[in-house]
């Protein structure tokens, strides 16, 4: 087990700059998730850690060793591929034993380790089968087994669950979490699915266009997104955005657009001081909206036209129009409304976010 250090990591493909100045310190035993939309450079970063992709500039340390020039086999890592990459001509047992055989382990030790891993993953009865005789979920387990028998310093996962159906994905997610708790091996996990990232990661790294946008634990990303991209990417359904401008009215700061006239709470207003007069984007999560009641301050309410009602059982999602902007509000399943109704919504002022209209950085 070991920490992993990325220092100003860059990757250029001939004309394309895929990974830009990525710096990251991954602690021993930590589970770090790289998340971002397709093509943002997650896989490339992971493959550079694995040694499968040359590093253009920067440094990677595993433990205390600079591994830039080390071939994959000398980095003491194990990788689980998106398509599992099981050796099709070998039995499950041989697939799991291969890495140990290559490293010249004793026969008994190999058998012992394969048995332990198979026990942990519940695949003892499949050991004699060929990969093509297995279901997707079983192959996934074998791929995990192949990684854990080696007892490496670091696990690398590249979207390991994306080929599974939704239900199995949730189940394997839980198992992965348990497995990490049990083994404690440092893990770097790549996914484009923010739910996976939030549930699995001790810390989550959000990437876009090769840049790291924000690094933080899941709640940090959810509560205090560093910019509009992270705010919109984390959370489902995503954060609502509305372009606003600020107006001062006596002591209070107002965020105003065609349908909104929101009183900005004092602590946030203090932060926004230098920004008065300039344009901004207001952000509020669907779960921070509710039907306005008598307790709600007038300055935090607004009118909305119901366009679509999505009943999910545990909650109702209301797709509404607020002036020209579209928003989603998550309300309790007991709420009764109809399409085309005009309703009054209130927002939780503590949970307001503002982003610079140009730089999109959180204000």
């Amino acid at each position, binding site marked *: 087990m070991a920490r992993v250090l990325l220092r100003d990591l860059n990757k250029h493909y001939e004309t394309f700059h895929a990974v830009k100045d990525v710096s990251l310190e991954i602690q021993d035993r930590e589970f770090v998730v790289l998340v971002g939309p397709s093509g943002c450079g997650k896989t490339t970063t992971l493959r550079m850690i*694995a*040694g*499968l992709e040359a590093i253009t500039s920067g440094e990677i340390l595993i433990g205390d060793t600079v591994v830039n020039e080390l*071939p*994959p*086999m000398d980095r003491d*890592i*194990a*990788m689980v*591929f998106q*398509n599992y*990459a*099981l*050796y*099709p*001509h070998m039995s499950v047992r041989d697939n799991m034993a*291969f*890495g140990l055989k*290559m*490293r010249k382990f004793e026969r008994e030790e190999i058998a012992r380790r394969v048995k332990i891993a198979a026990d942990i993953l519940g695949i003892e009865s499949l050991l004699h089968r*060929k990969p093509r005789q297995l279901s997707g979920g079983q192959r996934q387990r074998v791929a995990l087994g*192949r990684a854990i028998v*080696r007892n490496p310093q670091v696990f690398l996962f590249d979207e390991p669950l994306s080929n599974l159906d939704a239900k199995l994905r949730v189940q394997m997610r839980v198992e992965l979490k348990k497995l990490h708790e049990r083994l404690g091996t440092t893990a770097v996990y790549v996914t484009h699915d923010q739910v996976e990232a939030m549930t699995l990661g001790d810390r989550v790294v959000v990437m876009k266009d090769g840049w790291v946008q924000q690094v933080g634990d899941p709640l940090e990303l959810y509560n205090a997104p560093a910019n509009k991209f992270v705010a919109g990417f984390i959370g489902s359904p995503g954060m609502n955005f509305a372009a606003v401008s600020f107006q001062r009215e006596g002591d209070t700061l107002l965020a105003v657009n065609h349908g909104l006239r929101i009183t900005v709470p004092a602590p946030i207003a203090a932060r926004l001081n230098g920004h008065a007069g300039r344009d901004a984007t207001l952000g509020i999560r669907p779960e921070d909206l509710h039907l306005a009641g008598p307790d709600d301050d007038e300055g935090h309410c607004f009118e909305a036209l119901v366009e679509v009602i999505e009943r999910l059982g545990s909650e109702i999602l209301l797709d509404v129009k607020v002036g020209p902007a579209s928003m989603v509000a998550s309300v309790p399943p007991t709420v009764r409304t109809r399409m085309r109704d005009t309703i009054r919504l209130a927002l939780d002022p503590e949970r307001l976010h503002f982003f610079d209209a140009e730089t999109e950085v959180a204000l």
Partner: protein
Amino acid sequence: MATTTEAATGTPRTRTRLLEDERWLAFFLLMPTIVLLALFIAYPFMKGILLSVTNTRVGVPGEFVGLAIFEKVWNDGIFREAAWNTIYYTAVTTVFKLALGLWLALLLNRHFRGKAFIRAFILLPFIIPTVLSTFAWKWMFDPTFSVLNWLLREIGVIDQRINWLGDPDLAMGCIIAVNVWRGVPFFAITLLAGLQTISPELHEAAAIDGANARQRFLYVTWPLLLPVTMVVVLFSVIQTFADFQLVYVLTEGGPANATHLFATYAYQIGVRTGLLSEGAAISLAMFPVLFLVVIFQLLYIRRVETR
């Protein structure tokens, strides 16, 4: 009931009706293939067998003589030499074609500039009609005008002209070399296609698992390439075993029968000499050998594929 009465009247409508019956449809669809196979494969094959059990010569209709011709051929020293030559020629060329073809395929499977061009270029020996390229080789082997001799003399390896195709020992080497030259592209391109079906992720997984390049080839590439390899070898063995044009153009089986193969000797005896029955019997001698090779390899391919 209705169909039979209509069928008897034979209107175009009933013919359409007839085609809707699967058995008739199958028959009609298979007809062209059956006719072609019968005409060009089955008939000559049967005719060959018939010829071989008579004593037919050109201009002399034969009588049935049982297996007498086979016995005669079996006791023919040149036949035995041709049989040995064929086996030797097939074995040696196949080993070289496989080794060189695999090596080329592995090289071509890498990424480099002008990859597509080189891949097409490699196929040239295979595309040129055999007779033409073999004639070119024949000139290169010519004792007087040989570019080979000139080259070897220029760099000082030899001081006498070598009679490439006139020396019984060298002649076999020459036809083997030309066959390998011609056959390697087929091996290389087919094996390359096989290599490209192997996911690069498997090599990456193996590299992470600690396998070096040699071990990755041995434990990942080679086992996964084996089915394709067996098919290529099968085709090549069949073709080489029955090879004719190359030897016919270069040496006509000489010098002193040193390069006669089954096919060239059968032609020599059957057509040139006019002993049709003997020619047929020599040709047929290839059949059991090839049949066994095919059976063995097909069984092996099936075993590998169901593994």
